[in-house]
């Protein structure tokens, strides 16, 4: 399966489908499998590229300090390896911060961007999560962190419990480390994007679940970016791609159609 190595750090990613490039950046504390519905769906029209951030999935568990800029450079290294000239970019939570940073820095590459969550500055309580991964370890805190990014109803449902459970299994089986996960939380909260957001020129869709802690931040982001579109999914939490794939995908398709970036369903060659 594909990896790129940049500065000695390996980043794992998967590809699915054929067509224009569509890059997916997962939220913490998931890996790329959080987008299983979207990869199955959008692979009909796009070459989907779903990246594991360092510390998650099969990417290296980096236990030294790094920042959001390093994660963005990892994403760019994957795009280079896959020969991507133009792409749609979607990210949730930490992924949405990378989306905003990359949308600002590389409008030549990313032609339409979707930020789910879209917080734009360090969260006041993020230090608690860093500490919790350090003191409780992966097995102590990963379950709590996962539960906090979905609604209670979803976590308690058979399907929700299964999906969260499979992510916990991956954490154990793939040897994800509490220290590496702590470093990732740190990277997600290392900068204030607000000063630069008014200069964002690419089309931006901000999505928040109604019960998403990032809703105030996402609302602010959507106001700071001219021509940004803001959509709220009723009754959903932070990981709304998983809780409501039908509603989530419909918003993405509508946004891409609005910007003439939704390919027709061609016959395969």
């Amino acid at each position, binding site marked *: *399966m594909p990896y790129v190595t940049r500065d000695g750090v390996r980043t794992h990613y*998967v*590809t*699915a*489908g*054929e067509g224009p490039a569509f890059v997916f950046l997962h939220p913490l504390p998931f890996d790329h*499998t959080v987008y*299983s*519905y979207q990869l*199955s*769906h959008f692979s*009909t029209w796009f070459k989907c590229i779903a990246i594991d951030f360092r510390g998650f999935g*099969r990417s290296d568990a980096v236990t030294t300090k790094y920042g959001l800029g390093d994660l963005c450079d990892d994403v760019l290294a994957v795009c280079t390896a896959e020969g991507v000239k133009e792409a749609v970019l979607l990210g949730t939570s930490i992924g949405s911060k990378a989306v905003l940073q990359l949308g600002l820095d590389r409008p030549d590459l990313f032609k339409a961007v979707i930020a789910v969550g879209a917080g734009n500055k360090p969260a006041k309580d993020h230090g608690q999560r860093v500490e919790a991964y350090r003191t409780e370890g992966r097995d102590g805190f990963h379950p709590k962190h996962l539960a906090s990014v979905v609604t209670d109803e979803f976590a308690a449902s*058979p*399907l929700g*419990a*299964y999906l969260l*459970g*499979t992510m916990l*299994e*991956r954490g*154990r*089986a*793939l040897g994800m480390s509490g220290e590496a996960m702590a470093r990732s939380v740190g990277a997600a909260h290392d900068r204030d994007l607000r000063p630069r957001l008014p200069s964002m020129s690419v089309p931006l869709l901000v999505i928040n679940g109604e019960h998403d802690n990032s809703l105030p931040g996402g609302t602010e982001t959507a106001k700071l970016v001219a021509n940004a579109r803001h959509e709220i999914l009723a009754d959903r939490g932070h990981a709304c791609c998983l809780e*409501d*794939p*039908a509603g989530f*995908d419909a918003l993405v398709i509508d946004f891409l159609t609005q910007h003439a970036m939704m390919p027709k*369903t*061609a*016959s*395969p060659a």
Partner: protein
Amino acid sequence: MPYSINNGVKTYYEVAGEGPPMVMLHGSTWDHTLWLYQMAHFSTWFRCIAPDVRCFGRSDKVTTAFTYQDVVADLIGVLEQEDVKGAILLGGSLGSRLSVSLAHAAPDRIAAAVVYGANTQASPDGKSDADKRRLERIRRYREGDLGEAYKWQLTRGLTDDFKASPLGQYIVEMVMEKVPWLNGPAIPNLYEAASKNDLQPLLREIQAPFLVVSGEHDNSLELARDTARRLANARHTVLKDTGQHCGLENPAGFDALVIEFLSEQGLMPKA
């Protein structure tokens, strides 16, 4: 994403994960999307390979007549290209027949299988219920609208509850969006080919352990139980409250059965 070519026919497949090989074979009508939960889950421990059977998904739509053995050869081509040995097979509906055929034709490549909708009966006189259903499918494709015929077949193995649910509608619609890829006249070729092939004489010769799962509301449940009885090394189990496509309707229950079975067989990789 990869293609394998067998006698000029392209088979598309997706790969996910690392570890021993696990090959997932969908039924007629669907494509590899049927296994979206299992690809995400089992890629934790296995290199998962999910082909689109000819006539479906991104694989070639073959409009000339072909045999069931041609379809088996397509899949052996994928196994050869991916250098697969000792694979776990997951098979649903037609995929369960293909699992039986692969375990028989290439025993060194197949370690074990979990199958559902495992009706392996052939009925040369066309009078069995299964045969009547097949003839009805063919009639719909040859005489009716492709989209309607496809949707009818797609939803037949699903419970009413699942079909009516937002998630069920989303998944069915996801597969329906690919109808423009399909060739109507090609699809009945697959049903004709499968119907001419009697698998039952092979069953007692297959040494690989099989778990035969039936959704409680699968109308081929008794036929699957019969399949399990005839296989040399198999057991049958029922998953409650689901239709035929139990991996899709109840991934938690189905995956748990797979993991339990593989653990019993010493085939579940250690963490």
